[in-house]
């Protein structure tokens, strides 16, 4: 009975989708060409579309468009609002894409929508059927997809990589990224590097081994796999392709076999050096005392060859990591003074400027006020100068009592998290969505997992300051100078965008989509979208006008983990929509 009713519902929807395609057909057919590898490489400079995550594969979230600018922003207003609909609200963390007048955007519960970019009318909808009993760790979110040729490619909560036909939303190919029952999952947007689609996998908390994969974007054929933890062997065209790192160089015993390092966020691709830069998650098990050593390549950026999946260089942010400071934040390519550089604002609270030809550290400085676990980064070695705030070893205190409490900043939610910062090619500044939170940590005498005793830790998150948690901060990546900050009461959890209109755009959990002056941080415009913003904005040009789109819909990790922070986000209502703006 139930299955019949579902079949009926989708049949009904499908017929709407077909009807919609007939309407949209003249437009998409007249510009029928699919997205090429060159379109993707040039995405950051072509203003008529956004065909890659990060608005350009280097991940700068920068647009040279200036039709909307600091002079006329006052008249920016919604052109339309598109509802993702149904009862399925929750966190909308996506970055939309737009090509040939069609917006492609993912929504919570692994839905994908194609929308007429001019009118806001739905063209088609794809609803992924999640398997029964699946338990996503951090809400039912998805961060976006990749376009290649006539395909829209995205990952699912049950660890599939799916390519849809951009014309009708039908599945063209599917690939498995792991066993969701063992904790594998996918929430991040894949990227295109040359003719390959690259994606990682989530699930480090279940002890899976991080794996980055390159597939033929057209056919979905697996080309290479690169495990992120030393000792594991990669593959190329189904054959062994060398070990990651050197066996037991930085891991004791056989712990590398179950070592974590999930590359669960999106990476970037730098066509100038032909290098993928991808962040890796924390090592397992959680207790750092059990795995003495640096534990490579957890908590690192790995620079990977897009053709072979070989690691060219790496940079590790938090050696022998102990605080859940995943190193998965984006590593953004930019050039300065003739140098090819990369920037990375890490969960651990420090901003790193690297030479992206070799991974050598150029500069590092804190982007949060409070970073009690380390006082600074040693610029010679690239290693943190730890302060001794490492959580204690539960093996030292098996006396049946709660261990002593230490308070550490940043919290495990990070100085920043999954969301992308932006870089302005005009100001030379990075705009970082930062959060000031700390955590109490203690060893529990006993915790239980799957009905069995285990030595675990307890934690509680709390704000650091009374008046704010979130702050949009502008930094000079060369000097570390903080040029401005804009405080926000609730934590910032969405992506940032900079434009040549001297504007920086970002959203807040309170629901506001805001624009500030890129040089001074002065707030110039805001609009309340009706629910919290945890997605990433984009901008493009169409019919001579500049458009800006941002998903709105509160959810994701903060409300799940909030602790005392929850007080700052009480009363934020759920929502699920894409809001599109233009000048009036």
């Amino acid at each position, binding site marked *: 009975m139930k299955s019949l009713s579902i079949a009926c*519902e989708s049949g009904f929807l499908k017929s709407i989708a077909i009807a919609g395609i007939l309407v949209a057909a003249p437009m998409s057919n007249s510009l029928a060409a699919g997205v090429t590898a060159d379109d993707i490489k040039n995405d950051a400079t072509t203003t008529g579309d956004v065909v890659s995550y990060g608005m350009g594969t280097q991940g700068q979230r920068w647009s040279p468009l200036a039709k909307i600018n600091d002079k006329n922003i006052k008249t920016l207003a919604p052109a339309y609002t598109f509802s993702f609909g149904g009862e399925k609200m929750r966190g909308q963390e996506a970055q939309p894409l737009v090509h040939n007048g069609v917006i492609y955007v993912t929504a919570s519960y692994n839905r994908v929508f194609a929308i007429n970019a001019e009118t806001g009318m739905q063209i088609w909808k794809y609803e992924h059927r999640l398997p029964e009993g699946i338990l996503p760790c951090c809400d039912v979110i998805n961060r976006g997809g990749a376009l290649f040729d006539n395909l829209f490619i995205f990952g699912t909560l049950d660890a599939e990589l799916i390519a849809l036909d951009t014309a009708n939303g039908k599945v063209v190919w599917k690939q498995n990224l792991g066993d969701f029952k063992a904790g594998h999952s996918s929430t991040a947007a894949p990227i295109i590097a040359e003719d390959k689609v690259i994606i990682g996998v989530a699930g480090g908390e279940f002890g899976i081994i991080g794996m980055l994969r390159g597939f033929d974007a057209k056919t979905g054929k697996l080309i290479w796999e690169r495990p992120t933890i030393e000792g594991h062997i990669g593959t190329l065209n189904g054959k062994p392709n060398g070990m990651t790192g050197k066996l037991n160089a930085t891991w*004791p015993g056989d712990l590398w076999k179950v070592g974590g390092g999930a590359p669960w966020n999106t990476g970037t691709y730098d066509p100038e050096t032909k290098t993928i830069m991808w962040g890796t998650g924390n090592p397992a*098990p959680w207790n750092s005392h059990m795995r003495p050593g640096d534990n490579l390549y957890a908590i690192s950026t790995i620079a990977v060859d897009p053709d072979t999946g070989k690691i060219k260089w790496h940079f590790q942010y938090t050696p022998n990591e102990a605080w859940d400071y995943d190193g998965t934040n984006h590593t953004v390519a930019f050039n300065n003074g003739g140098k090819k550089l990369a920037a990375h604002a890490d969960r651990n609270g420090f901003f790193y400027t690297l030479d992206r030809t070799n991974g050598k550290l150029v500069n590092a400085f804190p982007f949060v006020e409070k970073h009690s676990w380390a006082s600074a980064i040693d610029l010679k070695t690239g290693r943190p100068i730890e302060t001794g705030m490492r959580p204690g070893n*539960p093996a030292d205190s098996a006396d049946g009592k709660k261990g002593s409490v230490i308070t550490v900043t940043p919290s495990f939610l990070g100085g920043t998290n999954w969301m992308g910062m932006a870089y302005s090619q005009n100001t030379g500044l990075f705009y970082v969505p930062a959060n000031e939170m700390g955590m109490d940590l203690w060893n529990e005498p006993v915790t239980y997992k799957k*009905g069995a005793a285990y*030595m675990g830790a307890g934690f509680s998150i709390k704000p650091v300051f009374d008046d704010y948690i979130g702050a949009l901060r502008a930094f000079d990546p060369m000097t570390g100078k903080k040029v401005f900050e804009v405080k926000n009461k609730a934590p910032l959890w969405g992506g940032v965008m900079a434009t040549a209109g001297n504007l920086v755009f970002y959203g807040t959990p309170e629901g506001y989509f805001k624009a500030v002056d890129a040089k001074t941080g002065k707030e110039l415009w805001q609009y309340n979208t009706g629910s919290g913003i945890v997605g990433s904005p984009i901008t493009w040009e169409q019919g001579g006008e500049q458009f800006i789109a941002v998903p709105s819909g509160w959810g994701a990790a903060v409300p799940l983990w909030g602790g005392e922070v929850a007080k700052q986000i009480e009363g934020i209502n759920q929502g699920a929509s894409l809001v599109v703006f233009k000048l009036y």
Partner: protein
Amino acid sequence: MLKMKIKCANLLLLCGVLFLSMQVSADAQAETTSDILKFAAYDNFPPYSYQAENGKAEGIDVDIARALAEELGLKASIRLVFADESLEDDLRVYVWKGHHVTGPPADVMLHIPYDQYLMKREDKVNFIAPYSEEQVVVAADTEQLGGNPQITTFFTNKIGVERVTMADGYLLGAYQGRIRDNVVHYYSIAEATQALLKKEITAVMGARTEIEASLGDAKANYQIGLMSMPGIAKPSWDLGVAVKASNEKLTNSIKTAMDKLVENGTIKQIFNNHGASYHVPAARINYQ
């Protein structure tokens, strides 16, 4: 275009009819659900609870659920669920709150530790009806290790564990890490005992019930028992069930039913049927 619209309209009509009939059948079902007791048990967890090849739930906890339901004159509906990162998560999702993807909670969850410390921390559920004691034991291959292995034997011999268990945490930290390099990690006890049978390792440390059942008839060839483990945080714990705190009536009837099943030997028999020895929960010994 016109044709399409007609089709849509037809479908809408059809949907309406189906929806109505679905409502009716759902109501009918609601009347009959009152004689069904909904249990949650961990998936992929032999010999306690797992999906057998025929697709049905099987195992010690599944048999206990059926026996409890029978005692109460109800039918058991058993849902095998994924273990989340911690017990607190499982209690929230499967016992007192539910989850926006997996749906409403069960009435009773099996295999929940019966522990005073836990009871103090979690006020949303009742921890009741202890039915067995789980112990951390070592199964040692005395052919390889000789007659009297100790924990220190593993300074120089390979010992297998399931990752992220008490045994794993203990061995990695014990004796200032002197055993660490000899700890071999597996994703399950079944994988570890397979390696033991092949003599790839000399011992397995972990939950007694899992080790005994996975060794099957071969367990006679191994020395299985408690060892002196200086500094271990928790060498044994009781297993019971969890019921939502507000559900007092169910709490009381489950308690009474479990008391009977433990006292009349049903629980012991269930453990033995699955190839495991039975150990009376410490909580029951203490009140006797």
